[in-house]
């Protein structure tokens, strides 16, 4: 009904024109390209796979992403996440722009590795300087120095070391230890020994926990001090270099936006490349196949005529492969994502979106019948739409919740929910009004739950009968008129009878009896045996239990509505306890704001999930045929900007 009629599309072009064809189709955004038949089906065509191009694209894309991440660290003007993405005309992006972006990416990646290397270098210089610092005052080489007959080594020992013990351990050996400096924790020493004894002396020192000076400074370098000055100069240089690199990166970050655009361009190209993979090629020609919705055929033909390609459109008929594109009015279209979340309908089946949208609207409002919450929901959703200008399902969902917010407002007025019972609590606590009036136009579910339960079940009954009627309509249209009357018609008659019974007893009773009779007579019609016929007919009445349980399922409308009202009222009462004073008003607003935001968030989730559930299980369960695939046309793909 409200699913676009699909046409199978195929076109043939010269191999040289393949890329411009796919690029053109990508700009048209209305062809869902599928794999063309190839030699596997013996038609002389080979698959048009080109893994080199694909991998080159993805390599460039990952380089661009790395460059983007690097440059993002240098961007001074951050974008707010609420702002809408820029709109860019795809055709305005020239090859020279691409080349410039590719250069930016290369330079950014070079800069990244240079910055990394320079920072590492700087760190190691700083470490060296720190290691040299304690040795600055000494005019000898560290860690080791040699003369022709002696060798010396410098290093540290723990300050807690027993020097007498060390001295006695070294008495046998021809060596001297100079204590150069002593701090609280360590002793700086220099040990000089004859070459023959040096290694032994060193091992004795090591056994006392000797740590050799970790850095090197020779006489030629001007000992530790000279080396430190040189290192300091090097550090200065490295720092200057790093600053220069950072400055350059900052300047390059001016082109961060272009890099984002470049990533999107590459993504778009990858999408095009994927589509080209599904082409079939012969020596000279390329075959493209896909699906086009009926409303876009003219645009596609015009484009192909201009190119001079051969093409054909073929009615999909009832091909189960055909993808689904919803075609609904402005209101119902916003509810399409709900249907999609369940599972797209099979091609050629009934699209319930428009009928469902009406019930969704009503039930959502009943479950969250509150003017305050509805207003907040609508304002937030419509503001987000205005600011972020999202597209696709995100846009539809936000609009849907905004619309449902209006339903909540209407129901809130009917059933008296204004942030639960905030007005009454304020009147009672601040102005001392005993027994404040109820603002409900109809009745308040908290004080009269039974009428609200009746409303819930009433909506449920209408919902269920509508579902049966849809099944009736679908069967009738397919020519299964007998099935429609027997399987759906008799139940509809039975339920209408029960409904009528509540108004006019006799007429209702008669209608119910007709329904029951119809069921008994028809439900055994597939059996040959007369006893089985009757038995099956009577047994079918047992199904009333399952319909009854479906109906009772709608009592959740009352339960969820009450839950949100009571919790909201708890926050109002807690907030109202301090009474009317400056502190009292502040406390009230703090508790009121936090409490109601929390309650709204929790109940919004519950309302969304359970309204959807009533559609999915109770409503769709009666007639829905799922298993379709959503229409996925070849379009420019983007993450940061929006291509026009």
């Amino acid at each position, binding site marked *: 009904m409200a699913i676009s009629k699909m046409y199978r599309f195929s076109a043939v072009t010269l191999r040289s024109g393949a890329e411009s064809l796919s690029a053109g189709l990508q700009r048209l955004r209305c062809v869902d390209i599928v794999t063309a038949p190839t030699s596997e089906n013996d038609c002389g065509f080979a698959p048009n796979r080109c893994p080199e191009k694909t991998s080159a694209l993805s390599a460039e894309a990952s380089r661009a992403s790395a460059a983007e991440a690097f440059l993002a660290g240098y961007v001074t003007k951050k974008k707010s996440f609420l702002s809408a993405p820029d709109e860019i005309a795809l055709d305005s992006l020239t090859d020279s722009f691409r080349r410039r972006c590719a250069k930016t990416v290369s330079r950014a990646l070079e800069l990244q590795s240079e910055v990394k290397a320079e920072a590492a270098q700087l760190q190691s210089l700083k470490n060296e300087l720190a290691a040299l610092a304690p040795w600055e005052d000494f005019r000898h080489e560290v860690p080791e120095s040699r003369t022709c007959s002696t060798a010396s080594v410098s290093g540290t020992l723990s300050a807690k070391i027993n020097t007498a013990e060390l001295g006695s351990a070294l008495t046998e050996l021809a060596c001297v230890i100079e204590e150069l400096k002593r701090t609280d924790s360590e002793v700086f020493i220099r040990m000089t020994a004859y070459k023959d004894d040096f290694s032994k002396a060193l091992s004795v020192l090591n056994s006392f926990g000797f740590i050799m000076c970790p850095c090197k400074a020779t006489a030629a370098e001007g000992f530790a001090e000279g080396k430190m000055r040189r290192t300091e100069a090097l550090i200065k240089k490295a720092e200057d270099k790093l600053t220069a690199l950072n400055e350059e990166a900052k300047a390059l970050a001016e082109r961060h936006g272009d890099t984002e655009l470049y990533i999107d361009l590459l993504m778009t190209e990858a999408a095009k490349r994927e589509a080209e993979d599904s082409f079939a090629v012969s020596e000279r020609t390329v075959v493209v196949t896909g699906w086009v919705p009926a409303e876009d055929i003219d645009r596609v033909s015009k484009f192909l005529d201009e190119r001079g390609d051969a093409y054909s459109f073929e009615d999909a008929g009832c091909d189960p492969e055909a993808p689904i594109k919803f075609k609904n009015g402005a209101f119902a279209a916003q509810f399409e994502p709900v249907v999609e*979340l*369940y599972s797209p309908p099979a091609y050629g089946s009934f699209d319930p979106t428009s009928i469902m949208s009406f019930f969704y609207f009503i039930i959502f409002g009943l479950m969250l019948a509150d003017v305050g919450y509805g207003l907040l929901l609508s304002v937030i959703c419509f503001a987000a739409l205005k600011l972020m200008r999202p597209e696709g399902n995100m846009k539809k969902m936000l609009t849907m919740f905004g619309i449902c917010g209006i339903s909540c407002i209407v129901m809130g007025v009917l059933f008296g929910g204004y942030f639960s019972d905030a007005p009454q609590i304020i009147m009672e606590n601040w102005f001392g009004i005993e027994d404040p009036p109820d603002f409900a136009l109809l009745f308040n579910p*908290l*004080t009269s*739950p*039974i009428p609200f*339960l009746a409303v819930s079940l009433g909506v449920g009954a209408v919902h269920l009968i509508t579902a049966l009627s849809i099944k009736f309509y679908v069967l009738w249209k397919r020519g299964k008129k007998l099935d429609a009357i027997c399987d759906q018609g008799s139940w509809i008659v039975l339920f209408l009878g029960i409904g009528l019974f509540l108004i006019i007893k006799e007429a209702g009773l008669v209608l119910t009896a007709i329904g029951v009779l119809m069921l008994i007579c028809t439900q055994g019609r597939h059996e040959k045996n007369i006893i089985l016929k009757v038995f099956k007919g009577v047994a079918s009445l047992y199904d009333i239990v399952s319909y009854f349980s479906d109906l*009772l*399922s709608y*009592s*959740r409308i*009352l*339960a*969820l509505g*009450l*839950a949100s009202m*009571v*919790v909201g009222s*708890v926050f109002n*009462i807690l907030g109202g306890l301090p009474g009317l004073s400056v502190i009292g008003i502040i406390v009230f607003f703090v508790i009121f704001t936090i409490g109601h935001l929390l309650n709204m968030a*929790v109940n919004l*989730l*519950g309302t969304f*999930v*359970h309204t*959807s*559930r009533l559609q*999915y*299980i109770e409503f769709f369960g009666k007639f829905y045929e799922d298993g379709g695939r959503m229409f996925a046309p070849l379009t420019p793909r983007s993450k940061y900007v929006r291509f026009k």
Partner: protein
Amino acid sequence: MTFSQILAEIFSGQNLAILGAALAATLAGIGSAKGVGIVGEASSALLQEDPSKFGKALLLQALPGTQGIYGLVTAFLILFKIGVLGTPIELTIAEGAYFLMASLPIAIVGLFSGIAQGRVAAAGISLVAKRPGESFKAVTSAALVETYAIFALLVSLLAILLF
């Protein structure tokens, strides 16, 4: 004071009603805590692999939390009705027992359905991990479990409101 007097003091009408409120909040709360905990454990395993699925995992984790809220709603309604937050009303033992019994559906069903829903939602986490596009199906099947907690809440609420 004799033992029987002590018993009579403890099991006053007012106290029985408060016991009902306490049971509703406690048992349903335990159910939710366990349920949310089960999903939380499953989802942190998923988030190690792919932190970007936090939103979807959080949605599933929030689902078994509603039983606790239903218990809370019931508990507060009882407290309102017996005037704990305003002027207390005198309850006979039979009236107190009425509130105690009215709290039982959500207390008991809340406990078990919270845990069961947690298990379904935790299994749904693996659906989110493998096919994030289908995650709403996991939400729907977890919501099916909650139905019975909603029915229990309904019975409890109706009994309390119609007192």
